[in-house]
């Protein structure tokens, strides 16, 4: 149907590799593709505009590395920004102390509020709570009946004064009913309403003012388009919203409304609905949502590629530092920690082709591993300044480092000497015609980790 975002971005950035820095001009096409992708996903026009602007500011001036596709660099920034905007992984529901927690669901018509009430009740029941479902939709025919059936399915208590009562009264009465029934959570199912319906908005405000809910969740479906900003804004102006529930995420909509909703309400998305059954309610995963907004699986691989950018970037910086011999203990620590992330030294060395032949025995390996840990402890005991400028490490500083790392002054001295030697050696190796290949040969294993 249409080219994937990957292809579009690849072609937009094709001629950019190794071209120095990202600028407003050379990013223009790429950012345009991202803009289109976000609009296709239903992110609001103004939200997109602001977002792309921010991404551009973040990306501008970044160095384009030889090794990586600049398109991937930009996607990485876009993806990270999306996730940052959408907030932390899981936001649990608020709980009241010493009294029943009141959760109110609000939103436009047909968003899935009643079903979500049932899902929340089931989820809370599974956690050992006792929810009471309260039917306050007196307008839609049989809405209260629907909630009663759903409550039964969830094994939760149900209460309503019926469709001839004032929904405000129902919600107020529900609190004493909860006490009587020993319920610790009250879930209010309010009628769907338009944000421009003044009378209906006044009603929902009255309910909120009377019962003072601990959570007011705005329920919106994932297929919502551009108008999400307007309805959410007006609900937010009328009520102190605490969160958003995004329903029907099991469809094939890209769900860009999520971003619009977060942008205008400033509230986190607390849950997503993933099906019609009552157990189909899940915590919100920002990275999954970001992937989906940018275009599903496509982008996942893109982001993985983009992830490599980070490592490639660091590697290049490292090389440059080594060449200039401005490499310091801070960098070394980082390198060491990166290596550690990848697994044990032995595992790592085994992965390098041809390395297994020259690998030391098990005992030697274990010694090296121990040595590496000791070295790390020593560097960690230094101040940032000491790591940047090892020269300032006089006798008393060295004594402090030794004590802090549980080693001896001799060991600290040796570490510093080895580091100095290595720095010099690396410099010549990097400059030498053989490049880093020679490095391996000169590495002294296993007596030194360097």
């Amino acid at each position: 149907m249409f080219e994937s975002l990957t292809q579009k971005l690849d072609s937009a950035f094709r001629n950019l590799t190794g071209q120095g820095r990202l600028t407003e001009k050379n990013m223009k096409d790429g950012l345009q593709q991202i803009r289109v992708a976000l609009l296709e996903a239903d992110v609001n026009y103004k939200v997109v505009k602001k977002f792309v602007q921010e991404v551009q500011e973040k990306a501008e001036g970044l160095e384009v590395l030889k090794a990586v596709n600049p398109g991937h660099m930009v996607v990485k920034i876009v993806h990270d920004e999306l996730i940052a905007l959408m907030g932390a992984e899981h936001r649990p529901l608020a709980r009241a102390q010493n009294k029943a927690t009141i959760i109110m669901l609000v939103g436009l018509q047909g968003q899935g509020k009643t079903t979500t009430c049932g899902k929340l009740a089931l989820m809370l029941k599974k956690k050992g709570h006792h929810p009471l479902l309260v039917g306050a939709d007196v307008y839609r025919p049989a809405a209260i009946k629907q909630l009663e059936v759903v409550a039964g399915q969830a094994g939760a208590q149900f209460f309503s004064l019926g469709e001839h009562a004032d929904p405000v009264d129902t919600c107020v009465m529900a609190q004493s009913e909860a006490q009587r029934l020993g319920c610790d959570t009250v879930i209010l199912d309010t009628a769907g309403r338009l944000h421009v319906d003044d009378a209906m908005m006044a009603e929902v405000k009255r309910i909120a003012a009377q019962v003072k809910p601990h959570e007011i969740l705005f329920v919106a479906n994932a297929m919502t388009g551009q108008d999400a900003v307007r309805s959410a804004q007006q609900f937010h102006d009328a009520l102190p919203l605490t969160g958003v529930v995004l329903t029907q995420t099991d469809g094939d909509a890209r769900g860009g409304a999520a971003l619009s909703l977060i942008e205008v309400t400033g509230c986190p998305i607390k849950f997503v609905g993933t099906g019609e059954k009552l157990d189909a309610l899940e915590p919100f995963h920002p990275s999954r949502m970001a992937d989906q907004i940018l275009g599903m699986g496509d982008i996942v691989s893109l982001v993985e590629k983009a992830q490599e950018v980070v490592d490639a970037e660091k590697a290049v910086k490292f090389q440059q530092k080594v060449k200039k011999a401005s490499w310091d203990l801070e960098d070394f620590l980082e390198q060491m920690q990166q290596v550690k992330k990848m697994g044990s030294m032995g595992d790592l060395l085994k992965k390098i082709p041809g390395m297994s032949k020259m690998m030391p025995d098990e005992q030697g390996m274990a010694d090296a591993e121990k040595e590496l840990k000791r070295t790390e402890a020593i560097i960690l005991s230094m101040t940032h300044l000491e790591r940047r400028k090892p020269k300032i490490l006089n006798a008393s500083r060295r004594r402090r480092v030794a004590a802090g790392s549980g080693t001896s002054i001799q060991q600290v001295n040796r570490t510093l000497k080895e580091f100095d030697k290595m720095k010099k050696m690396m410099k010549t190796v990097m400059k030498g015609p053989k490049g880093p290949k020679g490095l391996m040969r000169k590495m002294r294993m296993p007596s030194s980790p360097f």
Partner: protein
Amino acid sequence: MATGFLGRLRDRLGKTRTALVDNVRRVLGAGIRLDDAVWEELESVLIEADLGVNTVTQILDDMRKNAREKHIDNGETLIAVLKEELTLLLSPGDHSLHLHTESGPHVTLIAGVNGSGKTTTAGKIAAKLQRDGRKVLLGAADTFRAAAAEQLTIWSERAGVDIIKHQEGADPASVAFDVTDAGISRGADNIIIDTAGRLHNKLNLMNELKKIQRVIQRRIPDAPHEVLLVLDATTGQNGLQQARVFTEALNVTGIVLTKLDGTAKGGMVVAIQKELGIPIKLIGIGEGVDDLAPFNAAEFVEALFG
């Protein structure tokens, strides 16, 4: 009836007219020269009306050419031409409902994703037909959602028509069969069948719809005569995909665009009409029994900008 819709909407939305509209007026109203700001403003209005970035880009590219060729140099003329273009885009096809057959009952099947307004629409159509003196039978083929049959029952009472329903959890196709059968034996003029909301990417649920259609055809071979896809005007670009997939499963004859009484414009129907050629037949403008109106392209376009 047509003026009624816009007038009613204006009354309701009078004070919520947005700055956006004023912006367009400001930018486009007077004889201002067409510069980038004007085009951008137009783009924002159309995209925020959910026409979709691809459709908008195509339309505006055409407009640029148009403006060059016809030497349009001011906003007022431009917007008039644009409105004309959009109205033209939305006009092809048969936009009117045909609820009569020569003999035997006429069958209308109503489908769509969850919460789009199917049951309400079924109730509104039934009431309209009943008022026109027709004998109507409603079929509650949503046997899945809790209290769906009760909801339609209340609508049947409001409309003053009969209803056929089964137990919750029953086979929806058997409801469809029964209501068709009952319609024939009772000599009904119209049968209106409400179905459960379903997401179009669930294959088994789409197959269930096909089965409902087949079952109806067993009794009345040329039925269902109208297959209405109910779309919520707040829906974004996914609306096109919904229309595409529902049309593959059923012989969709038209779209009902609901909830136009809110601030959403339902602009995704432009792409639906343009790319799939499915005409919009009705619009929903409220929750009341009378809040259903025929679609009028010119008015719809007018509302896109206001």
